[in-house]
């Protein structure tokens, strides 16, 4: 197996170059077809997302792939060569594993990349450009990604404001089903946080805004109810999670109001998320029993700590990837070598048997003992001839050049793959 990978990512190329070299979904099929049309490109797959383009091929030459990328996008070599990286064999395997396990992502551990790689693999399968080698590689890559996800905390903690809100809400309420979210003010960020809470299981959404029409509009998005701004305090009694993001210059929820609401709720907890600047909720609210207040800085603090945690976990993940790369290489090389040994033996044994068969009539006068001796002698001749090449193959089984030697021996002895 000979792998070549050429690509570019957010780390090596600005967005102008990335969009210039991206493959649209429609273009993928024809791109894959024209790639495997080339001599010396046996299998191919293309991953194209907004952060990266990766072309992986079973091919001995990565320059072919560079040429292909430039030709396909009709762009000169010079203008992109500094942005493109090339990897071969072991390094290509490592890169594929790292990308799939989200170790090379902009936000380390983000889960989307695995889905994107799977989709790219599926498209290449449909296009018929994936063979034994790439499918072995990709299936291993998916398994490694899964292992990294389950054995390290790389994707565990929230690294965006809205996910941090969900994570904290879960620490308070556990299961969010049956919980009501109230949105006060209609900012993008508030909307996003509410959307994530809703997806995490929150059952209903109340929306209030100074402009009632805007509240009605937003309520429609969440299949929730709009509440007039003048009466929002009454409705807060039924809200478990309150997200504020108004443009008000002063606090709209003070300590007294929060205390009253908690009292009316018979002390059922409320999670206040204040993502407005200037703040909408008096920080003293956090001192009330069963009220939990996080403002934008608090959430950011949670995110920062989680990011640090992710980097720590990423180090462990790299170790897993290293081990897996080694194991995969070994498996691939032995896979090339072992069948060669078996086929070599089989083919020479066939030659021996055919010769004996052909000379059967010259041998028929020999006694059974003598016939057995002939059989034994020919066998041992074959074994002696085969001994050095097989020993060599066995020795090279764990060497990157083992595959080349296997190829050479196949050619010399004219052994065809079965």
């Amino acid at each position, binding site marked *: 197996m000979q792998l070549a990978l050429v690509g570019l990512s957010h780390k090596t190329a600005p967005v102008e170059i990335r969009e210039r070299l991206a493959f649209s979904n429609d273009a993928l099929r024809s791109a894959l077809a024209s790639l495997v049309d080339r001599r010396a490109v046996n299998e191919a797959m293309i991953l194209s997302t907004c952060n990266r383009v990766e072309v992986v091929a079973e091919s001995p030459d990565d320059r072919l792939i560079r040429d292909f990328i430039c030709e396909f996008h009709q762009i000169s070599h010079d203008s992109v060569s500094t942005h493109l990286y090339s990897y071969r064999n072991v390094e290509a395997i490592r890169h594929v594993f790292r990308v799939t396990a989200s170790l090379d992502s902009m936000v380390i551990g983000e889960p989307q990349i695995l889905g994107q790689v799977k989709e790219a693999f599926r498209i290449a399968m449909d296009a018929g450009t994936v063979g034994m080698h790439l499918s072995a590689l990709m299936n291993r890559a998916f398994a490694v990604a899964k292992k990294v996800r389950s054995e390290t905390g790389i994707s*565990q903690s929230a690294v965006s404001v809205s996910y941090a809100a969900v994570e*904290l809400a*879960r*620490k*308070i*309420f*556990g*299961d969010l089903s049956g919980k009501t979210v109230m949105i006060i003010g209609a900012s993008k960020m508030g909307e996003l946080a509410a959307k994530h809470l809703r997806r995490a299981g929150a059952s209903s959404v109340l929306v209030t805004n100074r402009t009632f029409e805007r509240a009605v509009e937003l309520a429609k998005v969440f299949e929730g109810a709009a509440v007039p701004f003048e009466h929002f305090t009454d409705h807060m009694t039924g809200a478990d999670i309150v997200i504020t993001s108004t443009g008000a210059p002063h606090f709209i929820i003070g300590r007294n109001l929060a205390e009253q609401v908690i009292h009316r709720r*018979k*002390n*059922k*907890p409320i999670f206040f998320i204040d993502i407005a600047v200037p703040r909408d909720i008096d920080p003293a609210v*956090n001192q009330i*029993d*069963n009220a*939990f207040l*996080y403002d934008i800085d*608090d959430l950011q*603090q*949670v995110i*920062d*700590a*989680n990011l640090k945690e992710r980097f720590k976990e990423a180090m462990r993940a790299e170790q897993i990837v290293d081990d897996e790369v080694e194991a995969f290489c070994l498996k691939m090389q032995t896979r090339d070598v072992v069948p060669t040994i078996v086929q070599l033996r089989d083919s020479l044994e066939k030659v021996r048997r055919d010769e004996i068969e052909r000379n059967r009539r010259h041998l028929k006068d020999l006694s059974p003992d003598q016939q057995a001796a002939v059989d034994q002698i020919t066998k041992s001749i074959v074994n002696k001839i085969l001994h050095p090449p097989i020993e060599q193959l066995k020795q090279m089984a764990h060497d990157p050049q083992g595959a080349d030697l296997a190829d050479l021996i196949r050619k010399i002895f004219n052994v065809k793959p079965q």
Partner: protein
Amino acid sequence: MHVVLLRLALGLYSFGFAHSVLTALKKKQTFFQPAVFAGFILHVASIALRALDVRYLPLTQQYEAFSFFGALTTLGFLIAYAKYRIAPLSVFAFPLIFIMTFVANLFYDPSASIPPVLRSNWIYIHTPLVFFGYAALFIAFAAAIMYLIQERALKSKHPIRFHNWLPSLEICDDLAYKSLAIGFPLITLGIVTGALWAQAVWGVWARDAKVLFSFLTWFVYMMLIFYRLIAGWRGRKAAYLSIVGFIGVLVTFLGANYFGGLHTFQ
């Protein structure tokens, strides 16, 4: 035979104990469940064998009391675990279960003599009620501690202090409330039957340290129930009171020996 079973149970509980230590150190593992379950079965078998041996409720000796309480706490843990799937409860449950069972092994006394004062059918009602009640109140206590740790972390807003291994506040509070709702009626009945028993035997029942402490403890839990139901207490305040109550239970169960009285083990 029952001692062998008890020792085996102790050995298996050590897996639960190891689990609690590892959980506290934030190491994930799941091997403890079958071990603890098997330990519990052996433990129950040990108590049953002892009961057959002495032809009586095996609760008249100190080691029997510890063993019984250990088994009930394990049962409480298993029920709470089956309902809420919260492994961290083990952090609190297993040190206690392990120590109780260990002490039971330590104080083991093969003599099967039953003090005449305890030869009464009341023992079959009074003692199990109290013990079941204590086990439930222990679970409530553990839930209260978990609640307070998690609540402090959330209020402090320092992400470093966040405890991912702990269940959510709502689950902690729910578990504390439900255990209280089970434990309180049990100890109430336990006290009533105890009073009736004492009345029947001696005609007086209040001049005993254990009785006095159990009244105080009962009163704390009574207040907690009252505040929860009437004043809508939950969370932190309820957790504090639940802890005070369980300290009362400990003093009643362990401490009363040192004050003398009818409940002292000979």
